[in-house]
């Protein structure tokens, strides 16, 4: 069954110039079929122009127990957000 196969994280670039975004994961026996499964599962409705698959085991994740020390300090630093500037309407993707 598919749980015998390694898991792969799938990233899709929706159009040229944009970054690949994580969309989900698939099981597959190897990289080539992981791409095929990713294509069949995540790009059947014109979602993408490029695909990446990465073995899930290769992802290094932060420890949820450390969420407090890692992320909470940022909550009180609103001055780090560039929200005090007016952005012209013509500027996209910000």
């Amino acid at each position, binding site marked *: 069954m598919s749980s015998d196969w390694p898991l792969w994280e799938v990233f899709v670039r929706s159009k040229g110039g944009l970054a690949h975004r994580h969309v989900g994961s698939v099981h597959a*026996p190897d990289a080539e079929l992981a791409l095929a499964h990713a294509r069949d599962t995540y790009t059947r409705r014109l979602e993408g122009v490029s695909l990446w698959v990465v073995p899930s085991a290769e992802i290094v994740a932060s420890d949820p127990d450390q969420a407090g020390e890692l992320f909470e300090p940022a909550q009180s630093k609103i001055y780090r957000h560039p929200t005090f500037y007016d952005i012209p309407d013509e500027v996209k993707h910000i």
Partner: protein
Amino acid sequence: MTGRSPAKAGAQERASAAAAAPRTPAYAGEQLDPRTQYLMRLGDDALVLGQRLSEWCGHGPVLEVDISLANLALDLVGQATLLLNEAGDGDKLAFHRDVLDFSNCLLVEQPNGDFAQTIARHLLYTTWQHMLLERLTQSSDRFLSEFAHKAVKEIAYHRELATDWTIRLGDGTEESARRMAEGLDWCWRFVPELFEVDELLQAAIDSGVAVEPLGFEEEYRSAIAAVLAEAQLKAPADQRPILGGRRGHHSEHLGHLLAVMQFLPRTYPDATW
């Protein structure tokens, strides 16, 4: 077809067609020109193989493969829709013809068997179909040329996926190699039909509409041999070829497939969804 039940109409077509020789598929009593019949051959191939693959939906060995096979099925049903609508009324052709009036090749109607047999069938058919479509882009017929430009990309993927799986199953475990070999063995005798040129196909070739399949038989044989070599599989021994699908002589399997596919529109002719 108005005023007659589809079953009765089919019986009458068979009776009148049997009297004429050589027998050509008749649709609603019409004798069809070679271009239309060529469209129907290609359309029936796509329709029957698409329906076969859709039988996997919900039964795939793993979820990812289930989705993958359903995608392949949808590509083929889409191709069948284009081809049969060009040949006539696509829905009528798909749902209101009887088995003897289908002109698909025998390979595509073969049962799914296990996953390996499905892959064997798909490898043998889509390698042929891909080579055909590459050439059909040069057809003098504008519809067929445009159709081929669209479909060749879809089928290139089918061929690649079937190739990938053949190699993995053949060069996999003892069990997967055995199943892959058995699947190929089942399908092998239906390959010669893909290269059969009968009178009707010859007429369509002569008019520049159809592709001469003998022109790529060598290329096909060596492409399949290369895949089998990479998969560590031996080509099955040549078997007595089985022909006749193009002339409506089908295996028992097609009738069962059509019964499922045609049941609803025949039982509820006014149904919409």
